[in-house]
């Protein structure tokens, strides 16, 4: 355990990162933070003198299941992440201190590690009622969030709450909960969606940063490409049944027992970007589909309003109607077809009567 006294910089040097790319990382970081170039050495200093990357983990409106998922990580073990990779200086759920002592840590980190800590956010801020649907230290959570984001190096949005809004943002979104990038505009936000995200994806993102000394490459929607560029469907082991045309038609039917494709039971695998079918859950034991239930699309934006979960087709909720595309379209086409028949009949009658 001699490494415990190694600094973050030494760790990444040992992992083969050159001095040059380290300084480049620091100045890129400073630039992306909108800080003056002079800030780069300060960031470098923070990382050079501290063994572990400071992480502030804040909670907004959420269910804490992202934290729960995080501690399930098998490789690396959550305890090794916390003891050896990062310095989890603030996390409401796990930290020993409370109240003023907890608040003091935030102030301290903000000033001591300006531009040198990662802000990890679980949950999201509500904007209604001046933000008082989520109060932290007597004040709206959104204020604390903005303040801590302002001086961070980068922001990680844990889970679908922080990334997209998730369940509390489902219609009618009574608290007007918004994804964190709606209030954090000037920082790179790494979205790690999922309800919750897979543990090893979470620790993977963290250890990517501490191992390679850079932020992961993101896709168009701000998600790390390494985990979110394929759909559940693309690597689903039931894909052969999908292509064959073998589906579970009813729960617990012959097809269900044989492991047929869950498409007809509403599986959202074809529209869901996540690593479940490859990384799987809880040390690779299973994932939703393997245990017989379709994917509900929990890492996708607005998945709650794309139900019902057990229909292949989502409900359309416009103009006061609520039905799926086939029902809406079927009715429209049916009415039109009936109109055409009626029209044809009237045409025929008028023609006949006129001919006489």
């Amino acid at each position, binding site marked *: 355990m001699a490494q415990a006294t190694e600094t973050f910089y030494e760790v990444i040097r040992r992992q083969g990162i050159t001095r040059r790319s380290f300084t480049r990382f620091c100045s890129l970081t400073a630039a992306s933070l909108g800080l003056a170039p002079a800030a780069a050495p300060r960031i470098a200093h923070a990382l050079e003198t501290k063994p572990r990357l400071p992480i502030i983990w804040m909670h907004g409106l959420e269910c804490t299941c992202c934290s729960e998922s995080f501690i399930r990580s098998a490789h690396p073990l959550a305890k090794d992440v916390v003891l050896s990779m990062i310095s989890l200086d603030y996390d409401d759920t796990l930290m020993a201190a409370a109240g003023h002592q907890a608040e003091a840590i935030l102030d301290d980190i903000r000033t001591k590690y300006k531009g040198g800590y990662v802000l990890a956010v679980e949950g999201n801020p509500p904007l209604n009622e001046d933000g008082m649907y989520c109060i932290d230290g007597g004040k709206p959570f959104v204020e604390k969030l903005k303040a801590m984001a302002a001086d961070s190096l980068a922001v990680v949005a844990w889970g679908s709450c922080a990334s997209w809004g998730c369940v509390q943002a489902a219609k009618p979104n009574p608290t007007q909960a918004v994804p964190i990038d709606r209030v954090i505009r000037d920082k790179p936000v790494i979205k790690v969606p999922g309800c919750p995200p897979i543990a090893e994806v979470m620790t993977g993102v963290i250890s990517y940063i501490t191992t390679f000394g850079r932020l992961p490459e993101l896709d168009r929607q701000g998600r790390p490409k390494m985990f979110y560029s*394929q759909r559940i469907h693309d690597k689903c082991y039931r894909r052969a049944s*999908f292509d064959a045309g*073998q589906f579970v038609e009813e729960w617990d039917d012959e097809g269900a027992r044989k492991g047929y494709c869950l498409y007809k039971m509403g599986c959202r695998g074809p*529209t869901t970007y996540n690593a479940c079918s490859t990384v799987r859950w809880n040390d690779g034991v299973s994932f939703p589909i393997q245990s017989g239930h379709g994917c509900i699309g929990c890492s996708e*934006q*607005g998945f709650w309003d794309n139900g019902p979960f057990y229909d292949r087709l989502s409900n*359309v909720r416009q103009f006061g109607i609520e039905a799926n595309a086939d029902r*809406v379209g079927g009715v429209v086409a049916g009415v039109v077809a009936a109109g055409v028949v009626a*029209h044809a009949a009237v045409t025929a009658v008028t023609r006949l009567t006129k001919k006489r």
Partner: protein
Amino acid sequence: MSGATRTNGSSRFRGVVDLAGVQTDRGATIYVYEAPVRVWHWVNALCVAVLIVTGYLIGAPPPSVTGEASAHFQFGYIRFAHFAAGQVLTVFFMMRIYWAFMGNRHARQIFYLPFWSATWWKGVWWEAKWYLFLTAEPKKYVAHNPLAHIAMFFTVTLGNIGMIITGFALYSEDAGRDSWQARLFGWVFTLFPNSQDVRTLHHLGLWVIVTFTILHIYAAVREEIMSRQTMIATMISGERQFRDDRDD
């Protein structure tokens, strides 16, 4: 090409209110739809038929087949047919756009609506009355009647574009993030980050096109019988024959 046709820029026109500005003589035929337009029309119709059937089945698959998965590719074929028809439709649609520039004036009709033209609006009104049995007789039109024109513009021109864009965006998910499809159409997912929304839109498009097709085929057959000019034959030979010699 029989019968005399004269193009005439003068204020008086005989036989048409579709802005073609063409005058005709009794029983005259006019060459309206050039071969590329006709070929496109029927290829498109065929693709659409395949796309409607396979598209519907993609949303609501047929009953499961039995036996080993490795021995079947039923749903795979349905999807393959859809993708194949979709690509053919796209290629021919692009060709059709090319022809809008190269072909005769009628080749351009479905790509714009002459909002500014009072004559055209008069035609819309007249044609509506005709379908509502409020007038004994339709007008004569060299190319599409104004109602058909509106329907074609919105459901086929814009409709095809919408279906191609959403279709290829969906296809890019199969082809992978690094595919040319993703590079060209990936932006769709910036507009609709959840691809389930893109599917829902694409699926609603099916019903728009089904609805159009019902109306369109009915109108084509009805007008073949009832109007003062040929219809389906025109889309086959390209030539429009007028059945009387009266004005408009």
